[in-house]
C-alpha cells in the first residue's frame, strides 16, 4: 500500500513549539468549539447533555508529551477547518485522496453546530412555502396520490378492525406515514425495483400506487390459495413480481445490502431504473444498514435508501437508538448524498425522491433520504387507556399551524399497544394535527382539484370494496398441502417427498387434528 509523505522545506519551524503542557493546550480557546456543546442543543433528545468534554484528556499527557501545538489561526476558527495556512503543502498521499497535515490538534465535533434542516414544500395549511424548490405535480397525479393515501388509510382501518375481530391473524398500519410510501412511489417508474421495509412493513402504499388490488391485499392477509406467497408468511408480507416489489421478509434491515446487489445488476444492464429500499430508524442500528451504505457507495450502485424515521422502534425511542443527528448524517459519513425531508409533506417527499432518482440513475450513485417523522419535545408519563381505534372519518379534520413532522400514529403492530409506552395525548396530537393526508388535501383542495363530494365518494367506495375484498378472500380455500413442500428448492428433494407422504398418512389417521386442505 503506497503511503508516503510530501514535505516542503518551510514547514516545521512555525508550527511546532514544544513549550507548555497539555492543559495549557486545552485552555487555548480555539479548541473549545470542538469539545463543548451547546447545552440547549436540539439533538439532546432526552434533555441530558451528552456532549460533555471527554474525560480522557486527564491522563493523556503521556500521549502528547510536553509539546504544544499552536496554530497561526488560533482563536478565530469556529468550525473545524483543514486549510491551515502554509501547512497544506505537506500532505499524506493515501488511496482515496490526499490528506493535509495540521499542527492543530482538533477532534472533529460529534455533531455540526446546527441540525440538518428538513426539506418542506407545503406548510401545515397546505400552502406552498415561498421559495421552496419543487416540481409541480399535475392534477392527475396529485389526485391519484391523494386517493391512494385515502384508500391506504381506509384499508388500514378496515384490516385493523378485521384483525381485532379475529378474521386475520396480524396487521400493521401505515397510519400517519401514508405520504412516504405513496409520494415516493409516485416519483418512481414501474421499472424501479422495490425492496420494502422488513421491520415495519409500512410500504403497502407503493404496491397500491402500482396497482396491486385491494383483493390481492386481502388474499395475502388471509393467506388463501390466491395469495402469491402461498399462505407461507404472516399478513402484510406482500410481494409482487409483476410490480417489481420483492417479497417482504421479517428480519430487520437484511434487504438493504440486497438492494445494493439488485442495483448493481441494473447498473450492469444499463437500465434506466434504480432500486428503492425502505427501512426504519431502528433498522439503522443494524450492521446490514452500515454494510449496505458502504457497499452502495463503493460499488456506485443506483439505489435510493429511504429511512422512515418515525421516532419509535416498537417501544424504543430514537433517543435510545442513536446519538447522531438522525440518519441523514450517516449517509455523508459513507460518502453518500443525503437529504432530510418532512414526512408529513407529500410534495416534499415526492420532490426529494424524484431528484434522488435522477441522480441515482444519471450519475450512478446511491442517495439517502431520511424522511423525518418528528417527535414531541415533552414526554408525559404513560396512561393506561384502552386501545385506540382509528376511524377514518376522524382523520379528515385538522387545522393547526405548528411546524410538523410525521409520526407513527398507529401502534407498531396489532401485537402492540403503544399506549403502554407513550402518552395517548401525544398520539392524539399527531393524529389530529400532524397528518400528512390532511395537509395534502388542503393543497389539492386549494388547487380546486378536489371537493367534499369526491371525498365522501372515494371513502365510501374504498370501504365498500375493502369489505367485499375481505369477504371474498375469506371464501377462497387455503392453499393445498403440497404448497408446504414446494419451493424449498426448485425441484423437491427426496426427503421432502418422503415427509409429505408420511404427513398425508398421518392426516388420514387423524383428520380431526388438521384443518381441511386439498
Amino acid at each position: 500500500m503506497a503511503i508516503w509523505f510530501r514535505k516542503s522545506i518551510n514547514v516545521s519551524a512555525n508550527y511546532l513549539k514544544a513549550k507548555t503542557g497539555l492543559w495549557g493546550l486545552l485552555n487555548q480557546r480555539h479548541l473549545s468549539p470542538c469539545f463543548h456543546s451547546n447545552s440547549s442543543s436540539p439533538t439532546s433528545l432526552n434533555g441530558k447533555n451528552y456532549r460533555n468534554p471527554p474525560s480522557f484528556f486527564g491522563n493523556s499527557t503521556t500521549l502528547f508529551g510536553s509539546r504544544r501545538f499552536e496554530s497561526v489561526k488560533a482563536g478565530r476558527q469556529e468550525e473545524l477547518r483543514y486549510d491551515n495556512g502554509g501547512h497544506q503543502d505537506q500532505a499524506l498521499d493515501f488511496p482515496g485522496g490526499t490528506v493535509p497535515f495540521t499542527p492543530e490538534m482538533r477532534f472533529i465535533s460529534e455533531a455540526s453546530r446546527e441540525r440538518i434542516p428538513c426539506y418542506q414544500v407545503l406548510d401545515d395549511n397546505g400552502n406552498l412555502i415561498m421559495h421552496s424548490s419543487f416540481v409541480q405535480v399535475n392534477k392527475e397525479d396529485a389526485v391519484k396520490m391523494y386517493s391512494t393515501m385515502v384508500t391506504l388509510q381506509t384499508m388500514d382501518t378496515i384490516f385493523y378492525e378485521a384483525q381485532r375481530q379475529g378474521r386475520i391473524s396480524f396487521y400493521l398500519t401505515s397510519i400517519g406515514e401514508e405520504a412516504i410510501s405513496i409520494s415516493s412511489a409516485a416519483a418512481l417508474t414501474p421499472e424501479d425495483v422495490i425492496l420494502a421495509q422488513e421491520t415495519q412493513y409500512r410500504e403497502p402504499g407503493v404496491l397500491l400506487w402500482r396497482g396491486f388490488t385491494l383483493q390481492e391485499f386481502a388474499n395475502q392477509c388471509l393467506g388463501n390459495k390466491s395469495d402469491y406467497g402461498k399462505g407461507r408468511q404472516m399478513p402484510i408480507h406482500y410481494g409482487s413480481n409483476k410490480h417489481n416489489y420483492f417479497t417482504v421478509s421479517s428480519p430487520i434491515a437484511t434487504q438493504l445490502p440486497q438492494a445494493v446487489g439488485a442495483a448493481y445488476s441494473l447498473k450492469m444492464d444499463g437500465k434506466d431504473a434504480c432500486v428503492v429500499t425502505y427501512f426504519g430508524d431502528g433498522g439503522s442500528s443494524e450492521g446490514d444498514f452500515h454494510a449496505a451504505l458502504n457497499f452502495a457507495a463503493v460499488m456506485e450502485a443506483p439505489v435510493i435508501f429511504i429511512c422512515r424515521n418515525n421516532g419509535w422502534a416498537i417501544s424504543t425511542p430514537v433517543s435510545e437508538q442513536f446519538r447522531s443527528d438522525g440518519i441523514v448524517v450517516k449517509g455523508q459519513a459513507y460518502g453518500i448524498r443525503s437529504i432530510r425531508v418532512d414526512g408529513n409533506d407529500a410534495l416534499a417527499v415526492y420532490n426529494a425522491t424524484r431528484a434522488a432518482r435522477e441522480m441515482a440513475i444519471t450519475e450512478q450513485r446511491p442517495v439517502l433520504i431520511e424522511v423525518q417523522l418528528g417527535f414531541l419535545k415533552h414526554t408525559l408519563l404513560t396512561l393506561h387507556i384502552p386501545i385506540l381505534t382509528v376511524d377514518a372519518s376522524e382523520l379528515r379534520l385538522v387545522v393547526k399551524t405548528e411546524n410538523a413532522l410525521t409520526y407513527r400514529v398507529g401502534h407498531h403492530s396489532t401485537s402492540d399497544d403503544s399506549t403502554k409506552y407513550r402518552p395517548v395525548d401525544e398520539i392524539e396530537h399527531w393524529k389530529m394535527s400532524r397528518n400528512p393526508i390532511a395537509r395534502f388535501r388542503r393543497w389539492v383542495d386549494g388547487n380546486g382539484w378536489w371537493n367534499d363530494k369526491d371525498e365522501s365518494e372515494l371513502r365510501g367506495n374504498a370501504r365498500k370494496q375493502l369489505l367485499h375484498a375481505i369477504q371474498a378472500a375469506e371464501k377462497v380455500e387455503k392453499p393445498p398441502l403440497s404448497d408446504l413442500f414446494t419451493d424449498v428448492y426448485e425441484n423437491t428433494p427426496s426427503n421432502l417427498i418422503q415427509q409429505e407422504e408420511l404427513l398425508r398418512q398421518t392426516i388420514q389417521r387423524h383428520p380431526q387434528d388438521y384443518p381441511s386442505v386439498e
Partner: protein
Amino acid sequence: MTTTTTTSLRRFPRFDFVSKFTATSCSSSRRGFSTTTSSSSSGGSCTEYSLTLQQQLESGSRGKSINLFSAINQALHIALDSDPRAYVFGEDVSFGGVFRCTTGLADRFGKQRVFNTPLCEQGIVGFGIGLAAMGNRAIAEIQFADYIYPAFDQACIISLIVNEAAKFRYRSGNQFNCGGLTIRAPYGAVGHGGHYHSQSPEAFFCHVPGIKVVIPRSPSQAKGLLLSCIRDPNPVVFFEPKWLYRLAVEEVPEQDYMLPLSEAEVIREGSDISLVGWGAQLSVMEQACVEAEKSLQEGISCELIDLKTLLPWDKETVEASVCKTGRLLISHEAPVTGGFGAEISASIVERCFLRLEAPVARICGLDTPFPLVFEPFYMPTKNKILDAIKATVNY
C-alpha cells in the same frame, strides 16, 4: 505426509460414475423473478457447452495435472466465460484472492464482473442475494469459512443465508428466487490455522432447508462440482478444503464439465464396513482403509463413500452400502456433537436397523474449539479411524 496425501489423492479419481445429471440449471430464468421462465428451464441447454467428466474422459480429453486451487480457478473462468451474467466478488478477489483461486479473472473479465468488496461478510452475502435475485450468477467468496461462523454472534451472515437466501423462493411463493447465488469459502484444518483459520462449519448450514451444501474432495471434483453449484437454480454454500488447495494434484480436464449434486459416490468398494466422509477427510479415511485391508490377516474390506453434497444428501447410496456391509463409520473434522455425522447416523439407523451388526462409529473432531498446538490431537486421524474400523468389525 505430504507425499502420502498427494499420492493417495491421485488414487481417488475413479471416474466410474455415470452422470445422471441433466443440466437443469443453466437456462433458468435470467431474472430470478419469473415463475414461468424458471419452471420452463429444466432440461435446458447446459449440455451444449458442458460435458460430464465421464464424457470428457471417454473422449480422451484428459487435462493437465493441476492442484485444487487451479481447478477452482478454471471453473471460475469457465463460469464467467459461459455466462455473461456471472460475477465473482469478495474480499481481495481482484488480485487473485488469498488462496489464488481468482487469479487472472479480473484481467480477463474486467473489474466490473470480478471485484473486491469492502471487508464485511454480511455485506458480501446480502449483495450477492440481491444480485442473484435479479437473475445473475453471483459467486461470492468468503475468505475463510471461519468468518462465516463468527458472524453467528452478530447474526449477520447466518441470518442472511438462513433467513434470506434460503427462504427467498419459498417465502415469495416462487415469485422470486436467489438461485444464482453461490457462496465459496475455504474450510477445514490446514496444520497451523488455530481457531479462526481451521473450522468446518458445514453442519450449521445443513440445518437450513433451502440451501445446498457441497464439499469437493479433489481438483477434478472441485471443478465439476463448483460449475454445477454455480449453475444450480438454488443458493449453494461451497466449502473448499483449503488443506488441499496446493497439496492435491490430479489430472483435470480443461473443458467445461459438471458433476451431479446430491449424488454420493462410492470411491472404494468393500464388503465389511462402510465409511462416509467428505472433503479433505476422505484422504485420511482412504489411508485407514488401505491399512485396514493390510493389517489383519484376513484383511478388512472397506467401502468408502464421498458424500459430496451434504444438503440435500444422498441417503440411498449410503443406505445401500450399509445394507451390504452391515457397519457404518462416519468421519469429519468438525466437532462430533451436533456434527453432520449425527444426522447420517440417525438416518441410517432408521433405515438399516436390522442390518446393522455394530453401533455406528463417529470419528470426528473433539468438542473443543479448534486448537493450534493441539491440532494433531484434535484431528480425526488415520489411526483413530483404523482403530474404530477394527472395533466396529470386531464388535
